[in-house]
């Protein structure tokens, strides 16, 4: 497992995402209310580019006509068949026991720390004064 600097924090504002490629894998990095999450860009159902889907809420109901929209902006809906996944965990909403999307640990680190690492950022230039999104893969 290695740590990859994938973006400067200001590149992905709240509610937005960025798809990056790390070690041949496309990964979507999402900013949900200033917390960052990363999921593999592949739906476990039929392989669609999942991270190009909409961020939606979770619609729940105890009986017809009484709807509650919870977890607003925290569910990722696949652009093909509409399967929904918890952006925080990758857990499927329709099949929570068996279906997961691979998720990755994300952290925000100051440039000051990162520049001490053995690798120099090329596509994501790291400046001492900036903050960066780091994904563990």
């Amino acid at each position, binding site marked *: 497992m290695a*740590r990859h*600097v*994938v973006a400067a924090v200001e590149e992905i504002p709240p509610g937005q995402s960025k798809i990056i490629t790390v070690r041949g894998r*496309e990964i979507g990095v999402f900013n949900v209310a200033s917390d960052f999450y990363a999921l593999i860009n592949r739906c476990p159902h*039929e392989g*669609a580019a999942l991270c190009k*889907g909409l961020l939606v809420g979770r619609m729940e109901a105890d009986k017809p006509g009484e709807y509650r929209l919870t977890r607003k902006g925290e569910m990722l809906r696949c*652009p093909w068949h509409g399967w929904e996944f918890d952006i925080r965990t990758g857990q499927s909403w329709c099949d929570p026991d068996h279906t997961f999307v691979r998720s990755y640990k994300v952290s925000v680190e100051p440039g000051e720390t990162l520049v001490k690492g053995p690798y120099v950022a090329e*596509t994501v230039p790291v400046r001492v004064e900036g903050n960066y999104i*780091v994904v563990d893969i």
Partner: protein
Amino acid sequence: MNVIAPTATPQADVSMQSLLGYVDCDIHPYFRDPAELDAFLAPKWREHRREYGARSRSPMAYAAQYPRLSPGTGMRQDAFPPAGGHPGSDLAFMREQLIDLFGMAHGIMLPLLGRGGDERNLEFGAAMCNAVNDWQLAHWCEPEPRLKASIQVNVDHTEAAVAEIEKRAGDRRFAQVQIQQRGLEPLGRHRYRRILDACAANGFPVAMHLGGTSGHASTAGGWPSYYHEEHHAYVQSMEAIVTSLVVEGVFEQVPNLRVVLVEGGFAWIPALTWRLDKHFQRLRSEVPHLKRLPSEYIRDHIWVTTQPVEEPERAGDMLSTLEWIGWDRVMFSTDYPHWDQDDPRYAFKVAIPEANKKKLFRDNALAFYGFE
């Protein structure tokens, strides 16, 4: 350690040898602008279309029966062309997302626009059918010969429908005749027989794609409340059509007729044949025009396309289902660019033996449509 994320996007893995040269039996082309059809309408009908518009059998004028999925009205969310326009309206983008992706040999188009088949004004409906047929050739088959057209007809205008079929006969750019799944009456009824005769006589299979408006409640138990419920009702419509074609004796009278059911599922077929055969043993004196078991007519005359593939709880049960239907009767389809389209790599959740995979993805359709 810290490493850098490359920004290049790798190519998808498409090294699926058994899919090469596959046939997609359900593609929906769309116009960039409704005015595209005007070029293929006589001035009289162009004016009629502008001033009065379509009058379908739908009980709610100017509205679909339900809004389907939003946003995108039931389209695959990543199928909106970057250059703008409706999903399915941009040939270059369709090539990128579908035709070139897995080495498709042929793609069968089933346009769901113009709505000539649903039109109450039968002369206008016939004109719209003719326009959509010419539009398919000009906008799709000419620039992209891998795409094949479906002849639009309004089955409630017998003379115009037969004339349209005869006009297109011998034109290999047309693969089949497309008939609305939901009609005023089940397709086996005598009133439609001349049209089915014309299809068979001119070598065209009949394709029934789910949809259309009958004016009747869309389920056998009344109007549904949800799209989820409505979607399943298409299966009922398919069952009703197959039963009607069999029991009315159509396949006795039009022995060369071949019918493909598109997007109506297929796992129900074995259960329907078992039931029809059982009742035939007891009720055959009512339908003495039937010379064979219902299951035999179905086996000889009915084909199905795959999408949306059923996903049984035990994935392996799919193999038994396909065995019961017949491996030579099932043809792969994507339904691009709709929201529930299938990807040829992942549509089946079970490994299909290689010989059967070739039939299902390619050879059955090549034989069915008589492609080289």
